[in-house]
C-alpha cells in the first residue's frame, strides 16, 4: 500500500471520515440492539467518550467559567456533562431506529476537518449531519456535531449558561443538576 509522505499523526480527510464512519457504526449497532433505554444511554456515553474530545467540548460549553475551576472540580463537571450528553442525545437517537446513514466526504475547514453525513429516516426528508474532527488533543476526535444547521456546541453553551445562572454561578450545583439532566 502506497502512502503519501505526511508528518506523523497529522490528520487527513480520509482519517477524519474513517473516524466518523466507525463511530456511527457503533451508534447504529446500539440503536438497533433493542436494549432497555438506560443501558443504551450508558453505551452512547461510552461511544461519546471514545470518539469525541469530551474535555474540549465540556470546557467550551461551560465558557470562561471553566478556566476558574480546579482540576478535580472540572473533572467532576466533565464526568457529569458526559453522562448528560449520552442521555440527551441518546433519547433523540430513538428516532433513528431502522434509519440508514451515509457518510459523505470530508473537507479541511479552518484548522480541522468537516465530515458530512446524511441520515435517511423512514418517511421523512433526509437529514444532513456534519461532524467537526480535530487532532489537536493529540488524538483524532470529533468536537462538534451540526444537525441540519443546529450546532451542538452553540446549543450546549447556551444551555450550560442558563443552568449555571439558575445556580448563581455555582459549578458544584450545576454538576449535581447535570447528573440528573438529559
Amino acid at each position, binding site marked *: 500500500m502506497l502512502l503519501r509522505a505526511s508528518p506523523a499523526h497529522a490528520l487527513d480527510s480520509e482519517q477524519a471520515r474513517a473516524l466518523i464512519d466507525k463511530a456511527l457504526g457503533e451508534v447504529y449497532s446500539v440503536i438497533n440492539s433493542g436494549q432497555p433505554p438506560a443501558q443504551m444511554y450508558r453505551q452512547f456515553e461510552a461511544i461519546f467518550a471514545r470518539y469525541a474530545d469530551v474535555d474540549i467540548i465540556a470546557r467550551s460549553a461551560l465558557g470562561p467559567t471553566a478556566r476558574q475551576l480546579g482540576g478535580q472540580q472540572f473533572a467532576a463537571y466533565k464526568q457529569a456533562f458526559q453522562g448528560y450528553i449520552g442521555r440527551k442525545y441518546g433519547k433523540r437517537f430513538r*428516532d433513528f431506529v431502522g434509519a440508514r446513514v451515509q457518510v459523505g466526504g470530508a473537507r479541511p475547514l*479552518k484548522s480541522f476537518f468537516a465530515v458530512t453525513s446524511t441520515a435517511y429516516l423512514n418517511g421523512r426528508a433526509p437529514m444532513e449531519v456534519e461532524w467537526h474532527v480535530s487532532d489537536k488533543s493529540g488524538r483524532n476526535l470529533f468536537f462538534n456535531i451540526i444537525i441540519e*444547521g443546529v450546532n451542538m456546541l*452553540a446549543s450546549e*453553551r447556551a444551555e450550560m449558561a442558563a443552568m449555571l445562572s439558575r445556580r448563581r454561578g455555582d459549578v458544584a450545583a450545576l454538576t449535581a443538576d447535570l447528573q440528573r439532566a438529559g
Partner: protein
Amino acid sequence: MPEWLGIPLRRPVFLYPVIVLLSLAVSGCASRPVMQDGIRIDDPYEVSNRRVHAFNKALDARVIGPVARLAKGSDEGAADAGSPGPLDLVINMGSNLSLPGKVANSLLQGRPEPAAKNFFRFAVNSTLGIAGLFDPAGRDFGLPEADTDFGETLAVWGVPEGAYVELPVLGPSTQRDAVGKLVDAVIDPLRQLLGTDRQRVLALGLRVGSKAGDRARFGDTVDSVLRDSADSYAQTRLIYLMHRRHDLGEDGDEIDPYDETGSGPDPIDPYAE
C-alpha cells in the same frame, strides 16, 4: 386577567403580530444584534417575546401536546398493521395542499427546478395519490417535497432577516419570516384552484391538521426543548435561527471561513480559545 383553559391571556400576546409588523417600518434603528456563542442574535423585543413564549409553552403543555400525543397513539396502532396511520394521511393531504404555494415561491425566487418538481409532485399525489392521501410521488417517482415559503423568497430578493420574534401559537420566527407567513396566506394559489368557500375551509383545516401532525411526529424533540431546557426561550431562539439560516443558505461562511466580514457565524473552533 382573562384565562382560557388555565392559560393566562394577556392582551398584548394577540396584539403582538401587529406590533411586529408595524415595527418593520422603523426597524434598523433597533438595538444592535449581538454575537452569542458564535451565532448572531438580533432580539430587541426579547421582553415581549418571552411573554409570548410563556403563553406558547403553556398552550403546548395543556392543549397542543396532549392532542398530538393522542393522535400519535392512535396512529401507532395503525402503523403496526403496516399501513400509513390516520396521522400520516392528514399530514400527507395537508402538505399536498401546500405545494401550489411552494411552486409559486420557487418561481418568484427564479428557481424553476424545485418549482417543476413540486408541480409534478402535486399532479401525481393529487391523482394517483387520491387527493394527496398517499405519497406515490415521493415513494415511487423520487419527487420528495422541496420545502420553501415566501420568507425564503424575501431572503432571495435580498430583504434582511430583521429581528427575532416569537409569534403567538405559530412560534419562533423573524420579522422577514413573519411577513412571509402573512404573504403566503394571502397569495396562496390554492384559493384560485378551489371553487367554493366550503372547500377552502376544508383545505385550511387539513393544512392546520398537517401542522399538528408534524408536531406529533417530532413531539419528543419539541417536548425536550420546551420542558428540559434550563432556558427554553433561549434554546428555541437559537435552534430556530441556526436551522432557518441553514435552510436558506445563510449559515456560516464555510466556503471562506477566514472571511470575518461575512454575515454568518464562523464555525466554532474551541481549540482557538
